[in-house]
């Protein structure tokens, strides 16, 4: 009774929390509200849950043991993880949720199989379709199997996504892979239908085959998708896990699980689409892997002539005597942990009367919002960050653009070369500025694995070295001017 109210509160907290999460001002509070609702639901379940026959839950030792272990590991992992590795972490946590749903399905299926096989005499009379027992069986097994398949796919897919993001697993695609994936999917459906449709088949062997194939499917589903698209894939798998959780809600007639799961399923799907839009691509395009699929390939080696280098002191002079400088941060800045050095340089220039702004590309770095987070950490003023559109309007009046560890997001091939894998992605049009200084460690390509024409253009000068060291040296030079 009281538990119903608790679950209702939890559902409301999830809705409110998610709503507040989508607004910068209230996001943090929203997260806390959802967490509070979740805590309430967990405690309520432990202490108030009753079977329909009135028995309470047992095995408190195990339950609390599991909760404590999970809490400790989860908190440590979440607190320790480096900022750049956060998307990987989210992927792992998502996988855990999927695995949890799959495990629930396994246990419940075993339970169902046992009860079906024990009182065999009773069953014999009710084996025929249209009996109430049969229809209950179909309903229950469909929910269990859906939870198993979706949960397993989400689990193995998330693990692959995690591996790709931290570089442990490389893109892997072969011809006809989509065909095989399609076939595998049909086999999954067929097996599940067979188990659910034929009453005697509370057959654990087939069930485990289904489990293994589902795990495989998750692997094959994610493998061909390019590493650069992993955030989108994680978001999609996230909504899968939501649906798997909702299956649990049907199974236990539990409204908190049902509403929470469906909410995430729907919101996650929309979020996935929004993320694709931010990259100017369609979801289908991402899943088929046409962009990412190339990412691991060899860089198209059309050597584009010579590039120009620039010295630290020349850079310092150029920056100091500019009216307006635009800094374009990228993944390299995060790797070098150079955000503080960057902020130092920016303050120095501002003191000298130079107008300094940051141009933030939506997919610079390795997760959406990566650059905002990074610069906020160094206390960079929020007003100095320009979004892509605003920045592109200002490049033509900019004297010096300083590209710090960014590459793909300033690659003009996205606009000019229809054959390029990043063709169509909106970029920061730094070529419009008077001068462009690019800092990176080498001429190696960035995430998409392709050459960047920008480096060979007459206005561009390369400034090789680790971003942090380079920035510190420039600051010293400027002070000594």
């Amino acid at each position, binding site marked *: 009774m009281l538990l119903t109210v608790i679950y209702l509160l939890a559902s409301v907290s999830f809705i409110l929390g998610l709503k507040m*999460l989508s607004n910068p001002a209230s*996001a943090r509070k929203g997260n806390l509200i959802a967490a509070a609702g979740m805590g309430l639901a967990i405690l309520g379940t432990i202490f108030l849950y009753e079977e329909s026959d009135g028995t309470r839950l047992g095995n408190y030792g195990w339950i609390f043991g599991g909760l404590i272990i999970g809490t400790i590991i*989860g*908190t440590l992992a979440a607190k320790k993880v480096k900022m750049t590795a956060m998307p990987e972490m*989210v992927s792992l*946590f998502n996988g855990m949720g999927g695995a*949890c749903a799959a495990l629930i399905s396994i*246990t419940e299926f075993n339970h169902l199989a046992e009860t079906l096989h024990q009182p065999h005499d009773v069953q014999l009379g009710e084996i025929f379709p249209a009996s109430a027992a049969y229809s209950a069986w179909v309903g229950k097994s469909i929910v269990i199997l859906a939870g198993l398949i979706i949960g397993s796919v989400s689990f193995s897919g998330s693990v692959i996504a995690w591996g790709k993001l931290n570089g442990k697993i490389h893109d892997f695609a072969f011809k006809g892979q989509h065909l095989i994936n399609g076939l595998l999917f049909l086999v999954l459906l067929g097996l599940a239908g067979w188990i659910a449709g034929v009453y005697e088949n509370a057959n654990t062997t087939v069930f485990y085959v289904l489990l293994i194939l589902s795990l495989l499917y998750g692997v094959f589903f994610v493998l061909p998708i390019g590493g650069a698209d992993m955030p989108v894939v994680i*978001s999609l798998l996230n909504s899968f896990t939501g649906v798997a959780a909702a299956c649990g809600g049907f199974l236990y007639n539990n409204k908190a699980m049902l509403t*929470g799961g469906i909410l995430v399923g729907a919101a996650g799907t929309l979020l996935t689409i929004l993320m694709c839009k931010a990259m100017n691509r369609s979801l289908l395009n991402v899943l088929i892997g046409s962009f990412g699929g190339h990412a691991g390939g060899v860089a198209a080696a059309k050597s584009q002539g010579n590039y120009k280098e620039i010295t630290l002191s020349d850079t310092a002079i150029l920056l100091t005597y500019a009216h307006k400088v635009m800094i374009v941060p990228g993944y390299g800045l995060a790797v070098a942990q150079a955000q503080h050095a960057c902020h130092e340089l920016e303050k120095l220039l501002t003191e000298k009367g130079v107008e300094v702004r940051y141009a933030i590309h939506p997919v610079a770095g390795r997760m959406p919002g990566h650059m905002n987070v990074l610069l906020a950490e160094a206390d960079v003023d929020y007003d100095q960050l320009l979004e892509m559109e605003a920045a592109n309007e200002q490049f033509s009046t900019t004297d010096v653009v300083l590209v710090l560890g960014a590459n793909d997001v300033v690659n003009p091939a996205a606009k000019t070369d229809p054959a390029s894998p990043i063709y169509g992605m909106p970029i920061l049009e730094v070529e419009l500025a008077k001068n462009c200084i690019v800092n990176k460690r080498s001429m190696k390509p960035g995430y998409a694995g392709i050459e960047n024409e920008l480096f060979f253009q007459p206005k561009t000068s390369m400034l090789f070295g680790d971003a942090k060291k380079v920035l510190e040296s420039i600051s010293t030079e400027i002070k000594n001017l």
Partner: protein
Amino acid sequence: METLLEKIALHQDYIYIVVLMIFLGIEVIGRVPSVLHTPLMSGANAIHGVVIIGAIIVMGKADPSNYLALGLGFLAVILGTLNVVGGFVVTDRMLEMFRHKQK
């Protein structure tokens, strides 16, 4: 056909809740700025950790002599907790980083 309609009528409350929830999920994040995509994904990830409730029920109902069920349930509780706790903590950390200067 008839039985399908019967099923729908029988479970209409569920169907309503699911449909309304889908609408809500879509409405609620309708216009999230792209900076918040990652924290929002992470927050949603934590919310589907509600599957932990199922794990607790499985665990609590398991026959103390059935080691398979106990083991699976225990694992499920740990994994579910990881999802929930890790999810909320990592989201909070992300959002904390935004806070600084953002009025």
